[in-house]
């Protein structure tokens, strides 16, 4: 039975991927891409990796899908959507050949994979009691390899920074009207608390089971984007500074905790004995909020009108 599910998933993945690539209409391609993300998250569940499945569903299918649909909408609105002529036979054949070669190579490599000399998962299990959390993935992300995670958060902050830098100077003001639909608002009053509660649960659950800051932050972002789309603005109208502070807060708190350990004479990112759990929770709280805001900003950055730099300078003087 399970084997049949696996084969179905595999075939489904291939079919959906090819449909998405070959589709003439971009809208169709995007929809199939979202479907691909959902199928992939099922594959991760079958591979016993629920953490990745959650992240894939929320970020791979959810946020990326929304971004793609939104870009498509923007392009249609501004009339910049051009349909590419379908690629020539030769190019198509070349692409097919390249991807098939890569797949063949990868299969060959995986089939000949030797037994690893080092059993890292055993080392993780051995060190888990000292890590301050009970879930090995959270332990790896926020303790054993926390340096990688710190830099990854840096990548997220950087992404939104590049987005803010590119914010088009002559964009028309955000004209998306609030939809005056009572049913929508009734749904929102039910949905938003549930989403916030789920985010909080995911954050808390990260200590001993799948979940954590990334998933919780993505869920938070989904709630923010839903609010944004139905007309409620979290955008930095009133204070650009406050928004920026929110964006870098997670990174800042993480960095501050990491540096504060240096002052006690411990190596960088070494949590003091006994307080690892607390510090990890603190970092994750800040990260959740920042990740939520970052993903929201990546979404709204295309809409919000840029503040005139000249005006900002006057404000400061």
């Amino acid at each position, binding site marked *: 039975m399970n084997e049949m599910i696996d084969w179905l998933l595999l075939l489904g993945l291939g079919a959906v991927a090819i449909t998405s690539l070959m589709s003439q209409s971009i809208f169709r391609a995007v929809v199939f891409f979202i479907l691909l993300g959902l199928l992939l998250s099922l594959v991760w569940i079958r591979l016993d990796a629920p953490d990745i499945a959650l992240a894939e569903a929320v970020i791979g299918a959810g946020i990326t899908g929304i971004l793609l649909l939104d870009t498509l909408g923007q392009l249609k609105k501004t009339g910049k959507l051009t349909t590419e002529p379908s690629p020539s036979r030769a190019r198509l054949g070349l692409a097919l050949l390249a991807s098939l070669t890569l797949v063949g190579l990868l299969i060959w490599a995986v089939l000949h994979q030797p037994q690893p000399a080092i059993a890292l998962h055993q080392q993780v299990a051995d060190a888990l009691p000292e890590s301050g959390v009970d879930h090995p993935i959270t332990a790896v992300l926020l303790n054993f390899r926390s340096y*990688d995670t710190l*830099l990854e958060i840096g990548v997220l902050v950087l992404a939104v920074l590049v987005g803010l830098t590119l914010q088009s100077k002559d964009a028309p003001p955000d004209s998306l009207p609030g939809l005056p639909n009572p049913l929508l608002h009734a749904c929102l009053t039910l949905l938003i608390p549930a989403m916030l509660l789920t985010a909080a649960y995911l954050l808390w659950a990260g200590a001993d089971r799948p979940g954590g800051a990334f998933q919780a932050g993505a869920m938070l972002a989904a709630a923010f984007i839903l609010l944004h789309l139905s007309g409620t603005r979290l955008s930095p109208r009133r204070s650009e500074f406050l928004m920026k502070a929110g964006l870098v807060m997670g990174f800042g708190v993480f960095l501050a905790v990491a540096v504060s350990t240096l002052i006690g004479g411990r190596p960088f990112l070494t949590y003091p004995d006994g307080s690892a759990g607390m510090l990890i929770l603190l970092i994750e709280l800040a990260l959740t909020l920042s990740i939520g805001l970052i993903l929201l900003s990546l979404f709204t950055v295309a809409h919000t009108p840029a503040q005139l730099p000249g005006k900002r300078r006057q404000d400061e003087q």
Partner: protein
Amino acid sequence: MSLMQSPMPWLLVIPLAGATLTMLLPDRWRSAASALGILSQLVAALLLSYQVIQSGPQIYAMGNWQAPLGIALRADGLAMLFILMSALVSSLCALYAQSYLKAEKRANFWPLFWFLWASLNGIWLAADTFNLYVGLELLTLAAVGLVAFAADERSLEASIRYLYAALLGSMGYLLGVALLYGAHGTLALDSLAEHWHWGPTSQVAVTLIVGGLLLKTAVFPLHTWLPPAHGGALTPVSALLSALVIKASFYMLLRFWIELDIYRHLPSLSQLLGILGAGAIFWGGWMALRQQHLKWVVAYSTVAQIGYMLLMFPLLTAGQSDASQLAYQGGILMLLAHALAKAGMFLAAGNLMICTGKPDLQALAGMSRYRPLTIFAFGLAGVSLMGLPPSGGFSAKWLLLQSSLLSGQWWWVVVLVLGSLLSAAYIFRVFAYTYRETGEEGDRFARPALSMELTALTLSVASILLGFAAMLPLQLISLPGPLMEALP
């Protein structure tokens, strides 16, 4: 205090904190905070080099978890050289940018600049294959952001192209790392080398990693994204990209190549890299000769110079210890000389473009009389790029030449000599334009700030001085360490 114990984490903390602060601080504090950050970076870099020279390579376990469970940082002679190089080039480029950029551009420049520096230091110090990937991602995004923030149509297009190429390269690298992890159970470079298992999995992994890194280094024929990105960016950004950013993936390639013994297992791949290098030298030189846009000449010259660095790979051959040593030293010296000379040349080119207000070579007429200092800086950088004595470029080519004669691969000598002639041709072509007479309209030139002329000159002079003081970096990179032990 822990700063005294090891300055290593500070090389990352300072730029990361700098990025956060420059995002939040008001305009007038940004530059002050950055200046303070640059000074403390220089101090930390010098402290760490002192430690490395005194007591050999340093290992720093992040979070006090030993590799392979945790992530270790490692500072050996090679890493130190790169840290000092990026400290010198970045601080001078930052000084240049302070005068070059308008206030509203600076607001976005500083955070991106600090993220770029953090990722560079992270890559030089990394001893973990996945950590290197994260560093590369940070580097790519910062570099793409810096290219894009010129914010005209062409630079946006160039940055998107750059982003796609760089992401494809990262993906190849990541796939390779995943395969290596599956086969060895570890991500740390040291333990990978210790348990190295050369089978089909490793072969595919190495192919993917090398391919990805070659794309990111813009090695011919995968270089097409480089000229628009480096030629179209704002001047201080072009200098940072050509001098430092492409060196990061090259540095990773070199570490993998030597520490994981790839040169021993795949001698044919070494020759292939050499052939690609020769292709880059001729194609880059030829294209540089045909450009009409000053910065595109300099950008294509980068494509050609990457070729010289690649010539080191076929000369690193098992069983020929002396030739390999010379090749290693020559290649690294080449890289260092290029970093200094190319940064100097881009900054000088930027100054010339400010003078004329136009990017074209045609507009340079009369420049040699009007801006002798800038032309001098451009010329000194050119001397090093051509490889004329006495300059860093000459010493590097001399070492590579000796190495190829010693290992009996004389054909690389031909490539070196012909390539140098080609470089001379495209640099003298620029000069020829500056000596043309303008007639009576010679007084409409704008004037770049003195600090901008001096930063360009400092970098170019450094690339010449490197020829006299080549022993210093060579001693630094020959300090004992895992890399030196793995060298044939």
